[in-house]
């Protein structure tokens, strides 16, 4: 038995030796942090600086005499109104994530600026960068095609707030002469905030003269809804400048898109959200109307696409000027769930009066449906885009 016990002991000892650990060798990292982030924007000491965040169940009216810092999610709930005076600059804590302004279903924003006194949402960092904070989010009760219909709702990518419904004429308030800067902060590991996010926003909402400047993600994203936008500017959006999905059917008049060194598509349009499906009954697809569009890329030799259309989206584009892309239109789809090509055959998708300058391929058709360029694009060379120099004067930055 002694030999057995000895063997046993040896075995146990060996077992413990076997349980050798992994390597460590992790260096001590000592960080001397002299930077001061979240410093204010040099406001005069006479004004009151007020932090804004949290869920508001009463109206909130900002006072032009004060300065405001958004330092977390600012959510206006059903029945409340956020009123912002013309000329005000609202700064957001440069925390990178979880700082945004959301107008929930049934709430309103009244932000009525002027060309000379635009309302600016920007970062409070001393040297601001794209992605310093989230962005502006409106949620309404207009139809989306990710749900079957009625008063069913989906929940937003940011903050999990409900959106969608059966009121195409829903009213989320007024956005006029608004600039959102350095937005696009991350929401989670997969998604980022946009400059402006419109979730199921209805067409009684007034959106005119809006600019997204230096954003980490999309400039403007439409998740269904019927909202119309007049005079839209996207400068240096690092993802898509204009993005739609989930059955967006509004009209965008006069859109001006300029790519910076980091960018994705000028426009990326989806008929529905392919992660969920087109659950609408009767079925409808995104079908925006775009009039007077200019997209300026970095040159045809830098690759990329000006406009990508997929997942069955329809679109009607009239008068567009596209410059500096490898591809003008890139259309993807198939003949079952993603009938992007079918839209062209049914003449629901078409592009009239389009000019391509420094563009190698005007149309790349990967829809699985065959049609000719002329079936889709009419009036090639007749487009002159939008007169940004005229309407963008004074209130925009480039």
């Amino acid at each position, binding site marked *: 038995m002694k030999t057995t016990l000895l063997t046993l002991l040896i075995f146990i000892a060996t077992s413990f030796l076997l*349980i050798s650990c992994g390597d460590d060798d992790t260096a001590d990292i000592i960080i001397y942090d002299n930077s001061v982030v979240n410093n204010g924007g040099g406001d005069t000491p006479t004004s009151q600086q007020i932090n804004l965040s949290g869920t508001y169940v009463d109206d909130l009216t900002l006072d032009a005499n004060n300065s405001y810092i958004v330092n977390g999610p600012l959510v206006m709930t059903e029945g409340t109104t956020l009123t912002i005076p013309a000329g005000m600059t609202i700064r957001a804590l440069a925390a990178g994530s979880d700082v945004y302004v959301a107008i929930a279903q049934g709430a309103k924003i009244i932000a009525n600026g002027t060309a000379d006194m635009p309302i600016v949402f920007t970062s409070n960092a001393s040297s601001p960068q794209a992605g310093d904070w989230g962005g502006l989010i409106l949620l309404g009760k207009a139809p989306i095609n990710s749900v079957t219909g009625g008063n069913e709702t989906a929940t937003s990518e940011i903050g999990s707030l409900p959106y969608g419904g059966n009121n195409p004429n829903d009213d989320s308030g007024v956005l006029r002469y608004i600039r959102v800067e350095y937005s696009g902060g*991350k929401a989670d590991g997969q998604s980022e905030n946009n400059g402006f996010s419109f979730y199921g926003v209805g067409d009684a909402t007034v959106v005119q003269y809006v600019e997204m400047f230096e954003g980490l993600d999309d400039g403007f994203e439409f998740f269904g809804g019927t909202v119309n936008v007049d005079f839209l500017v996207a400068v240096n959006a690092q993802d898509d400048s204009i993005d739609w999905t989930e059955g967006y059917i509004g009209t965008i008049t006069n859109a001006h898109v300029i790519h910076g060194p980091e960018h994705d598509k000028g426009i990326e349009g989806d008929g529905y959200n392919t992660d969920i499906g087109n659950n609408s009954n009767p079925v409808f697809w995104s079908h925006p109307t775009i009039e007077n569009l200019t997209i300026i890329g970095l040159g045809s030799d830098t690759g990329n696409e000006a406009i990508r259309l997929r997942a069955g989206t329809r679109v009607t584009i009239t008068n567009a000027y596209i410059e500096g892309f490898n591809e003008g239109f890139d259309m993807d789809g198939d003949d079952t769930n993603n009938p992007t090509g079918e839209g062209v055959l049914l003449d629901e998708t078409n592009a009239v009066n389009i000019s391509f300058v420094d563009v190698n391929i005007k149309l790349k058709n990967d829809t699985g449906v065959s049609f000719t360029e002329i079936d889709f694009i009419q009036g090639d060379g007749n487009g002159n885009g939008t007169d940004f120099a005229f309407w963008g004067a004074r209130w925009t930055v480039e």
Partner: protein
Amino acid sequence: MIKNRLLILLFILTCGSVFSQKGIISGQTLDAEMNSEPLPFANVFIKGTTTGATTDFDGNFSLNVDEGIVTLVISFVGYQTIEIENINVVAGETVELNPIILKADEGESLDEVAVTASTKKESVQSLLTEQKKAVELKTAIGADELSEKSVSNASGAVTKISGVSKEEGSNNVYVRGLGDRYLNTTFNGLTLPSNSIDKKNINLDLFTTDIIENVSISKSYSPHFFADFSAGNVNINSKEYTGNGFFDISLKSEMNTNAIGSDFVKSEGTGRFGFYNRYDNNPFAVVLSHGVDPVSAGTPIAYSISGAAGKSFNIGDDSRLSLFISASFDNNYTLYNGSEIDYTNDYNKRFPNVDRYKYSTNTTLLGSAIYRFNSEHKISFNSLFINSSGDEVGFYGTQGDGFYRDSRSFVDTDRGFYQMNVQFNQDLIFVNQLLGNHTLTEKIKLDWGIGYNNVYSHEPDRKRISIEDYFYALDDDLNTHPVLLTNNSFDNQRYFQKVIDDELNGRLKISYQVTEHTKINIGYTGRTKSREFENIRYGYKNFDDSLIVDPRNLNSIFNGNNVLIDSLVQTDVFRPIPGMSPTNRPGLPENTYTGNMDAHGGFVSAEFNLNDKLLLVPGFRAEYFSQEINYDVINLVNNPSSLKVTEEFYLPTLNVRYALNDSQNLRASVSKTISTPEFKEMAPYVYEGVTERVGGNPDLLGWQDGVSYINVKDVSYSDILNFDLKYEWFMGNGQIVSFAGFAKQIKNPVNLVVANDATGTQRYFRTGDKASVYGLELELRKHILFNADEQAILTTGFNATYMHTEQDLFSTISGTYSTSFARSKDQLEGASPFLLNADLSYNATFGKSIKSTFNVVANYYSDRIYALGSGQLGNKIEKGFAALDFIWKNRIGDNIELNFTAKNLLNPDLQIIREIQNNDEILLSNYKRGINLGLQFNYKF
């Protein structure tokens, strides 16, 4: 053997000198059912006294007996009881008996079966006998059968039981089509924690056969189980050694036909033995100090080493202390070659070529001490430690043909997408249990247990890198290079996750034999459990244009110098430390949650033997149940927050057994049970895997103020009704035929489906009014051929299950989260309509000393829903397949065993598809696992 004899002799001498007024009876028991091999653990006692012992591994026993004429009784569960009368014991002398051969029989009483402490439930026959006598529907598989079929762990064990199947490539076990959330796992009757954040049950792979005495599944409810009982309870009984002393050692080597010859890789910084030594460092320091590239894992030949030893000590006249220790280490190399696609309504990611290298280890230590005061009282202590690790390196899109829907490539958006995922998971599990059995009076017995469990589940430093234009890494042009995908800071990321679970649980049962025909059980089972979860993640952003991307040397980019000194790369974190930037700075945990759960229930049940044939067992349980969850997560408006629910459950149950004759039973069982949601299902935190996102939903607990609901019920649990009917025929000698029919109805069932939330996140919903399961089970174990001595040489085992499942689905669900269904009903997730497990074993003898067993084991399951599609999404289907293993065991002489195993011989395609329109399908993943060939050497000292 000689050594043991010597030992016994020494033992006898010692005893002899102390108790000089006594004599000794010694002998050996042999097993008639196993070619007259020694029968260990038989009970030997002197009639009319408390003097007794169990035989050791070699069937030997030796008793100190008072002088006089005595009768010796030898018994073993499932075997004939033998009495040897008129043994004349003389002080100081030894009576050496002839070998005593025991034959299988069904002659013993129920009480004897109930004394689990003194029986060894490893053999097929003894377990069948227990099954026959049991008052509930229960199926068990013992160590003998596991060893015969070369089953290496408990998970392999349960799949030998009818109606049970396992999901390939994961540790999901399904009982009658109901998966993880409908099962419970216990160890010696006390709840075990899960080792994984996304599971309710522990991975049964972690329980190696070395430490298992038997594994059983109770498919019908008894009130000593917690109210949360749906498909069944898996119980693992640990090895319980009471013999005189033994020491075994086993060595095994195995290779996988895919892995052998490959340059096998694993994570950097992890030990070959499944440990990781950087937990004490701040994750940010780990990110800066260490790179992302995997390292060589050496030659992919797996091995395992295990040893077990036991020894017992007699203390005084009646008491006996038995010690047992088992230690094992094994590792495994598997290379999965195949393809993977992420497709919902359109292609999101498409990887035609994927290589996944998986290196896993398992270290198990079990110590047990059993102290038997006398035949009335016994206390045992079990301490179990398990370290399990999985080290997986995946290369997705290796031939440059990968596709990503949101590609930002300026060269080709249709191909060239590549991802590398390097992930290490380590689970450290500690289980400590104190158990007691007491015979208080002839009629009253007490059975109790207390357990304390801890689980540390770590996912440290998972590295995920995303690359575009990967084809440039494959060509010979030195001027072209791939680029990093930089859509989001977290396309290239390091992720750290930690979960700690603690649980205290207990059970207590008093049985009172009121009359010969009536027995009453009263008891309590309770548990209190807590969980702490946290994770943090660092992303990379703003890569300098001068950085050249070489997918085989990513450390040249992802290193601390580039971040801190040269400023070529920046790190990003979700929650900056207040006052600090998220860029190039450490951060606070991204998501945290804590959970608490309490379940305390009292039960009463009675066993009425109305006549010789009919046994009625009515029971009732009343349980207080509460659970609470507190969370602080990202990307949620109502945060941080907490939820709490408290319920009382009253559950009646009835089990009936009718003995048609001595060997045939009819059984019926009716019960009401409950299914409660788990922490992870309620906490609205989203886990972002490589290709899927899963989050919780507080609506599972019912309504809250301020939310409007469509098709969301104000309930916090599911009611379940269970019906079972079974016919069993015990043909003796380890043979059985049984038929069973079952039906279940689950109200307000929970499914994991894609929510309408713009990101494709899957969440838990109560998807319909009810789900129903109906099924038939057939089980057969039969000897086919016998040799001249009438011993079985060819035996077959076979079980098959046919199921019909159906659940209704709401067209729309809207609450805190929403989803919808385009169809009104479907099958249950995870339910294969048809399951089959079969085996054939052949015994042969070569020469005098080599005994061989040839075993062929087959499993089959038909197609089943892997994930229910919501909206117009089709279901994800796991394609059915057949698996075949071959095991050749050789026992050479008394001490040596040499075995050969060939597993996964058919090497089938493991496929998951998504159904799309027009009865078409998209192949989402397709892998071959390769064949595993192994050689095993066992030595018994």
